[in-house]
């Protein structure tokens, strides 16, 4: 590495590599053998080519805010930090695109586009810290994706390298690039198919005006039904979020967002557009929520108040971090109509495992974030939290949902992949991986379990009463 990277860009002393031992999922830690911090595409190419030639694993990393252990370093390989790729290369206001390096923070793109009345739509809660490279790896969402989409809907083109250091350009600034949609495949691939060195994103016009309604409900299921009523009325709100009482209480102490602390659940429902459009839509939303049983409603009266209503939702994770030594954030997505059932199930799990679990919920798109509170210093609590999480994720699959809506599988949910997918589907994922990375060096062991691992987990999905691959040993 030192042959082509400056001395400051190669870290191997423990005191230097320690900060890279984990990402946002701190329950899993591993010291990387070496951390490489390249500054140019050529250096990235050389790192990859060298690692490929020597058979050394490589794990790419952005800001390390991921919540599923996707950037957990390899003990016997290179952690490839893209932190120094932090330039915004081009903002083209007429074409409404920005070309940025992967280490650019999500919020920095919107800041750079703001003078032109444009912004980058996906807004994960961690947007002040997380990088666009990490967003691409995880297909990150946010609180506005029902109307404006996920990362996959807002990225036009990627430039990067395969593990062998071959340059690739995927997608294009022009619509509908020819051939297979490798852009869809690469986005959300958790750094396992290519290493990205440049990202072209779509910019949208900033809405002229936005307003949010905060509605209180005495019952979680009633709140869940109110969400369906809004959609049934033909309204697609810019944001539609739900928080239960334990979550609002945690948040209120932390940021003072002005939430109704008596409500069993609150809904935040945002409308954006021209001022006339917003007034019109807010009126309709108000009527729907009233009919659906809201016990109290208040509207943001200023931009500052709107941002304050959202500040609580966006600070939910750190707020929960203050009331509990540790927490475990889940990310299942379910059909909205099953919300009441799943929340009841979570309530039962709280009793079964003796752990509390506040819920925040991207209600518009059915994405749940139950936060299991535990104390890693108490014997057995982490283990209980993990089992709690596993049961909830498997419940999400059972009701027709998925184990992860936006945080990724990483190392955290790898066992539940064995439940969500059948062996032949997992085999296909592994074969797709081999098509890009035959030796399996890029972020190995993440996102897609081997069938042997599934056999060990003992939750292989049984097809028509017949266990697939009976030849594999089970433990």
């Amino acid at each position, binding site marked *: 590495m030192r042959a082509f990277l400056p001395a400051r860009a190669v870290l191997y002393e423990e005191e230097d590599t320690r900060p890279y031992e984990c990402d946002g999922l701190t329950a899993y830690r591993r010291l990387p053998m070496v951390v490489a911090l390249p500054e140019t595409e050529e250096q990235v190419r050389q790192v990859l080519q060298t690692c490929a030639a020597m058979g050394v694993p490589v794990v790419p990393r952005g800001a390390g805010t991921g919540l599923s252990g996707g950037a957990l370093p390899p003990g016997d390989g290179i952690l490839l930090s893209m932190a120094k790729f932090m330039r915004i290369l081009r903002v083209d206001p007429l074409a409404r695109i920005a070309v940025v390096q992967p280490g650019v923070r999500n919020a920095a793109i919107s800041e750079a586009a703001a003078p032109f009345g444009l912004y980058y739509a996906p807004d994960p809660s961690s947007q002040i810290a997380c990088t666009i490279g990490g967003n691409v790896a995880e297909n990150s*969402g946010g609180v506005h994706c029902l109307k404006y989409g996920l990362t996959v809907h807002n990225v036009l083109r990627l430039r990067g390298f395969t593990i062998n250091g071959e340059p690739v350009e995927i997608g294009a600034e022009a*619509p509908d690039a020819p051939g297979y949609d490798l852009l869809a495949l690469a986005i959300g691939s958790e750094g396992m198919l290519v290493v990205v060195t440049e990202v072209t994103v779509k910019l949208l016009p900033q809405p002229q005006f936005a307003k949010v309604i905060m509605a209180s409900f005495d019952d979680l299921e009633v709140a869940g039904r109110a969400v369906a009523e809004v959609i049934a009325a033909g309204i697609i709100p810019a944001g539609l979020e739900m928080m239960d009482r334990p979550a609002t209480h945690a948040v209120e102490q932390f940021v003072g967002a002005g939430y109704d602390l008596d409500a069993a659940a609150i809904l935040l429902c945002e409308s954006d557009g021209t001022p006339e459009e917003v007034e019109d839509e807010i009126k309709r939303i108000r009527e729907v929520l009233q009919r659906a049983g809201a016990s109290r409603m208040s509207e943001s009266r200023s931009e500052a108040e709107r941002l304050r209503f959202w500040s609580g939702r966006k600070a939910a994770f750190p707020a929960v971090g203050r009331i509990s030594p540790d927490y475990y954030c889940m990310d299942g*997505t379910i059909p*909205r109509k099953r919300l009441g059932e799943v929340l009841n199930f979570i309530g039962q799990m709280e009793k079964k495992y003796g752990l509390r679990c506040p819920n925040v919920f991207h209600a518009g798109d059915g994405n749940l974030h139950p936060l299991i509170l535990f104390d890693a210093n108490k014997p057995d609590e982490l283990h209980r939290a993990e089992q709690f999480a596993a049961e909830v994720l498997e419940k999400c699959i059972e009701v027709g949902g998925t184990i992860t809506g*936006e945080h990724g599988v990483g190392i955290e949910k790898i066992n539940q992949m064995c439940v969500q997918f059948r062996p032949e589907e997992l085999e*296909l994922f592994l074969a797709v991986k081999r098509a890009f990375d035959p030796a399996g060096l890029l972020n190995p062991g993440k996102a897609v379990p081997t069938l042997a691992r599934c056999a060990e987990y003992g939750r292989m999905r049984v097809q028509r009463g017949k266990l697939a691959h009976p030849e594999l040993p089970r433990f």
Partner: protein
Amino acid sequence: MSLESLQTAIRDAAASGAQLRLRGGGTKDFYGNAPRGSIIDTRAYAGIVSYEPTELVVTARCGTALSELESALEGEGQCLPFEPPHFGAQATLGGCVAAGLSGPRRASAGALRDFLLGVKIVDGRGRVMSFGGQVMKNVAGYDVARMIAGTLGTLGLIAEASLKVLPRAPAELSLRLEMPLERAIEAMNRWAGRPLPITATAWHEGELTLRLSGADVALRSARQALGGTALDAAQAQARWRAVREHTHPFFAGNEPLWRIAVPSAAGPLALEGKTLVEWSGGLRWLRSSAEAGAVRDAARAVGGHATLFRASDKSAGAFMPLPPVLARLHRELKNVFDPAGILNPGRLYPEL
């Protein structure tokens, strides 16, 4: 027809190496390179599997008529936001997803792939597999479902698809403005950067038509900002249908039709022939007998690509050739899904 019989047909073909031509209503037979192989007609595997308007998701089998699906959505005040072209009454959902084509609303709403939440496919070994699902957000496993859009049946038979649907706009209004292409391109891009409810654009022979969709109040203020003459509702509807379905006079005749996708703000292309421009400038239809190489060079020069859409001679290849690394990845992926190479061989690229 059952899924098992489709599986059996594919499994048998894989064993004997017989090439298969997966086909729905045949309305897009012209698209891509010439189809070959014995036909598997998917129309018998039809029907809406589930549709719950409040979940904003519809799931249907491949043989379902696109018109049937769209009327079911219309009945609930919803629509397929990407406005897929049918190109004939027989169009099926399977063919629609396999072709991956989007209509006039693409620049504002997104492409077919943006709304494709999940698929069930039968791969080249006859295995049934499901990817994605019926929820809005799902990042478990690689996003194989979205990648299936536009593969023209070369990776698997699309047995079932789940699509995100949206409410239909409460009101629409179309405006006509006179302006030369260069100014129209500039104007369409400028407007797209402002919060205006423009959901379709079409420029042809000095006339720019805009469609606005949304709440009445929004349309009124947008109309003031944009100017132009309003079309009456029936005329407007017919106009957009003609653009979407290629029944507009521009599309008549036998001269080769090119579909040139470019970055939307790229200036007019210096190519001989008539043109019709959509998607705020991102899509340039061209009727021209110009050399394929010249058309593709012109597209490439501005960062775009050119598809030979309708032509009696497609020896130049329907789609723009891929650079070597991407071409290799395509071959590797084809080999993962269809190792015997029996599914719609050559339809997308000769080597796939």
